[in-house]
């Protein structure tokens, strides 16, 4: 079996992080550093008539002020996606229009933070305020103000209707299917704004190296996309830019966004000085957010509960700009609908602009929103046909060897890839969860009385593993004198542990130990290309690239070993960092082999580059069970126990894999219960602090049980699938189902905070 993978080896950067030695963006000193700050729009929608910086310019220490009237105007998207990006080019470094409270109006670089802040106050801006769209349901109305009426933006689905994106796919005949269905369910939810809140806010530092190249040191998930997008916006070729990603203090999607780096870069190019931009926690809440969505699911089934028809309508709110506008909405369909088999399936998605904070990528990426509706609908169906929620899912979910037409129909803003399920341990996870939560003791809400009422709920989920036919990763491996290996990957470790996981994969293939691999990741000058860390792709896609590179290196090692041991390559076996001749019973260490190849005879560098794309995106699967207690006097929901079984194929590093799931669950719990944007009448987010935007701390944890159910995915490295996103899909629908089981009300809006629940209970009598 495996030696280095499927083993919880220590995180390769663990000790340096635990001792505070690891270097994050801000942990390196720069002589003469300038501090960058934004002047932000106080109005949700309007035209900038004039900007007067004369008072600010006079302030000693102000080095440069950039705004619409003194900068170039290049349409682009801030979404850090592969080229050409499926997001509309509707964003400019500065535009003459502002589109939400917080939109960038001017950028100041000054010798201190205080001076930059002082300068902001001294800039005079004259606005012509326009009517604003502050609700996703208002965006498509005939008389709605047009948010993107600029001439040179492109890739927008329908500017006149405020539509950033739209899609409709049909399989079978949904209309007929619903008409003829014996059982019909029709249910809608509205999901809410939320923010990733990595503990390290967005930060970047730009500077010029000794040759005058622009170096961008940034907290990003997508270094290569940063280089490409900055090159475009700064009108300079990629060769003039180097992007370095040091340690990253969490990201969860919000750093799959390129929208600070070019401001700092521009200021560095103008002043020749290093420039830092570090968002405050308050600014972080209006950086990038999760797309709020209206999701309606209509389902047609027969009397036994067998599903024949699913229709999903989605309206997604991308805020002022269309970052990930199309693809997040696509994912609500593509990562949810294939979970259930049906002859007739229709997905109809629209993404609208509003004058609210900009949405972007966020762990779960649309699937989280889709499941908020779909997994409640399954429970409603179960109740209608008198079946257990577990049973209804078991009889309808996709099975090994099966496919869904949706895989092909919905991809990354375009057609996807046909995918047959080759690994699934969902039923095993379900059976375990049933035991763990004592599902058999569940009684209907009608039999419950008293102030505190307990309820149990569940749900099943899937996600994907990378973007098929789009995401490419590569890795370079070379041997050193002592038989150690440098592994250089474009893959981006955000704290997820991918440096460790990729080192393990290299070690497994190379028949050595993980501590013999020296990994360096994400530096556009020093490492080969990788699309970056998103779409649950790193283990699956980048892992594949590492494996390919390692296979090539392994062949070279065998060749040199055969020469050294005077035998045929077929006779060589690699084991424990050594090459053995089976015939001669002799061996050479990798150190011997490295030295031989570098110094002794027929010298060459043992090393290779490997790339990988995938034809498919095999889904990980998850079963979730939760028990809650509802205080019917106050409306407060307390989660008592949360049980989660996950099939992520082979877990390359089980402890890190569990950690991904646990982290995603707790993020999802506060998203479901307390995380909430409060807007004023202008669409200004009013609660941008950890005091008022409540994410869970350690005291808020319920009893949490995560168990991995390893399957073997033949298309993944050593059988691996993804694991990082799926966990966040569970809390909303599972808790909503438990809420119904406790008190008989359904949550169609989120978060499920006490006031909302109490009002529901009161309406219900």
């Amino acid at each position, binding site marked *: 079996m495996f030696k280095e993978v499927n083993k919880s080896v220590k995180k390769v950067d663990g000790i340096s992080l635990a001792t505070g030695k690891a270097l994050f963006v801000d942990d390196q000193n720069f002589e003469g550093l300038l501090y960058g700050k934004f002047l932000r729009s106080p109005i949700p929608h309007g035209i900038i008539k004039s900007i007067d910086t004369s008072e600010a310019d006079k302030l000693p220490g102000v080095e440069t002020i950039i705004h619409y009237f003194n900068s170039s105007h290049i349409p682009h998207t801030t979404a850090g996606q592969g080229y050409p990006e499926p997001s509309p080019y509707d964003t400019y470094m500065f535009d003459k229009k502002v589109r939400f409270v917080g939109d960038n109006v001017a950028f100041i670089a000054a010798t201190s933070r205080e001076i930059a802040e002082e300068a902001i106050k001294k800039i005079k801006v004259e606005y012509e305020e326009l009517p604003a769209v502050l609700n996703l349901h208002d965006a498509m109305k005939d008389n709605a103000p047009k948010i993107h009426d600029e001439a040179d933006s492109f890739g927008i689905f329908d500017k006149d209707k405020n539509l950033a994106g739209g899609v409709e796919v049909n399989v079978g005949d949904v209309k007929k299917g619903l008409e003829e269905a014996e059982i019909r369910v029709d249910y809608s939810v509205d999901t809410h704004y939320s923010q990733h809140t990595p503990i390290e806010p967005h930060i970047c530092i730009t500077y010029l190296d000794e040759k005058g190249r622009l170096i961008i040191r940034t907290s990003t998930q997508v270094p290569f996309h940063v280089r490409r997008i900055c090159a475009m916006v700064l009108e300079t070729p990629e060769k003039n830019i180097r992007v370095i990603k040091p340690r990253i203090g969490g990201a969860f999607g919000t750093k799959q966004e390129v929208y600070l780096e070019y401001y700092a870069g521009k200021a560095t190019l103008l002043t020749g000085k290093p420039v830092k931009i570090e968002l405050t926690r308050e600014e972080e809440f209006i950086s990038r957010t999760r797309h709020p969505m209206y999701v309606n699911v209509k389902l047609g089934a027969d009397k036994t509960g067998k599903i024949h028809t699913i229709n999903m309508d989605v309206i997604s709110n991308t805020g002022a700009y269309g970052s990930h506008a199309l693809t997040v909405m696509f994912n609500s369909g593509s990562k949810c609908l294939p979970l259930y088999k049906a002859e007739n399936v229709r997905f109809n998605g629209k993404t609208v602009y509003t004058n609210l904070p900009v949405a972007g990528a966020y762990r779960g990426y649309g699937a989280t929103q889709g499941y908020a509706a779909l997994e409640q609908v399954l429970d409603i169906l179960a109740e209608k046909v008198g079946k257990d929620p577990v049973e209804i899912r078991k009889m309808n979910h996709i099975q090994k060897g099966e496919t869904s037409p949706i895989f092909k129909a919905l991809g990354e803003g375009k057609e996807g890839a046909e995918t047959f399920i080759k690994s699934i341990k969902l039923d095993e996870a379900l059976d375990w969860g049933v035991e763990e939560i004592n599902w058999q003791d569940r009684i209907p809400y009608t039999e419950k009385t008293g102030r505190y009422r307990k309820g149990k709920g569940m749900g099943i989920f899937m996600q994907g593993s990378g973007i098929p036919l789009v995401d490419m990763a590569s890795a370079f491996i070379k041997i050193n004198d002592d038989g150690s290996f440098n592994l250089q990957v474009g893959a981006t470790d955000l704290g997820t542990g991918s440096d460790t996981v990729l080192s393990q994969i290299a070690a497994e293939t190379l028949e050595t130990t993980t501590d013999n691999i020296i990994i360096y990741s994400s530096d556009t000058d020093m490492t080969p290309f990788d699309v970056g860390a998103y779409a649950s792709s790193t283990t699956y896609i980048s892992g594949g690239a590492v494996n390919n590179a390692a296979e090539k290196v392994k062949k070279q090692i065998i060749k040199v070993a055969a020469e050294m041991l005077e035998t045929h390559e077929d006779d060589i076996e690699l084991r424990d960092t050594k090459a053995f001749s089976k015939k001669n019973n002799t061996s050479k260490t990798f150190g011997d082999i490295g030295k031989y190849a570098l110094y002794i005879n027929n010298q060459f560098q043992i090393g290779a580059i490997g790339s990988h794309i995938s034809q498919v995106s095999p889904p990980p699967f998850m079963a979730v069970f939760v028990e809650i207690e509802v205080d019917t*006097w106050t409306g*407060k929901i307390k989660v008592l126990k949360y049980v989660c079984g996950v099939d992520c194929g082979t877990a390359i590093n089980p402890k890190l894999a569990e950690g991904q799931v646990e982290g995603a669950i707790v993020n999802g719990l*506060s998203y479901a*219960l307390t995380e909430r944007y409060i807007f004023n009448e202008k669409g200004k987010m009013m609660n941008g602090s950890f005091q008022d935007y409540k994410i869970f701390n350690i*005291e808020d944890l319920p009893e949490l049980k995560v168990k991995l159910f390893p399957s073997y995915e033949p298309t993944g490295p050593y059988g691996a699938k993804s694991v990082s996103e799926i966990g966040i899909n569970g809390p909303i629908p599972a808790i909503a189902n438990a809420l119904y089981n406790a008190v008989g009300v359904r949550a169609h809006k989120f978060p499920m*905070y006490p006031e909302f629940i109490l009002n529901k209970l009161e309406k219900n009598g």
Partner: protein
Amino acid sequence: MKIENYFKPKDLNEFFKMTQGHDHWKVVAGGTFVSRQKYVKVHTLIDIQELGFDYINDNGDLHIGSMVTFTEFIETNNDYANGTLLSSFAKCGPITVRNIATIGGNIMGGYYWNDTTPVLLFLEAKLVFLKESSEILEINVEDFINDRAKYKNMLLKEIILPEKYRNERVFFNRFARTESDIPTSIFLGGIVNGKNKIVIGASTVKPFAIISEDEITVEEIKAKAKEIHIMNDLRGSNEYKLKLINAQYKEYKETKDEN
């Protein structure tokens, strides 16, 4: 305005010398309040850690020096009013805050005041201020709550909790959305000197007390709450807060009936 000076007076004389006739100074008493304020107009910080206000004297009345941190008090395990003070103080922020935030700083600064002031109001605490020339001014917490601005530039020396509450059983209910969240509503109830007493505090409402010979009805509380003008805030609308008070009242009555 930029902070240009940082003084740490060794005694009261020095303190008064530094503050007399000056504007724009602020006492650092733990520091958690000043540092959270973005736009305070402060020129001089006066750190009072060396004035000796970090004592707890518990003989008869309970005297808590204003510079006692929440943690320092919690560590004494003082069961004043059957632990009511402890239960309240134990939830004034997370441990990182309680370790540095002082009870006096909390009262004066108003951060988490929704936690401390209701309990102090219920327990009829007195605040001892030192005015210029070391004149002592002892006032009821209630007066302080009603006219906070008046005491802004005075030095809080200590908080006195009267002996009569030492063994009182007080109903204390703190409603928050989660274990660690800031409370949406705090409710204290009990019978003191044969009279019914209820105190309510909420994040955007200054705490208020109702004292009555008769049983206090929830309608009375709600009427008073409306008078005080409960405001919508991030944790709930005013309507919801009234409902919460209702729930807390019901729980209080249940507990009372059980005893």
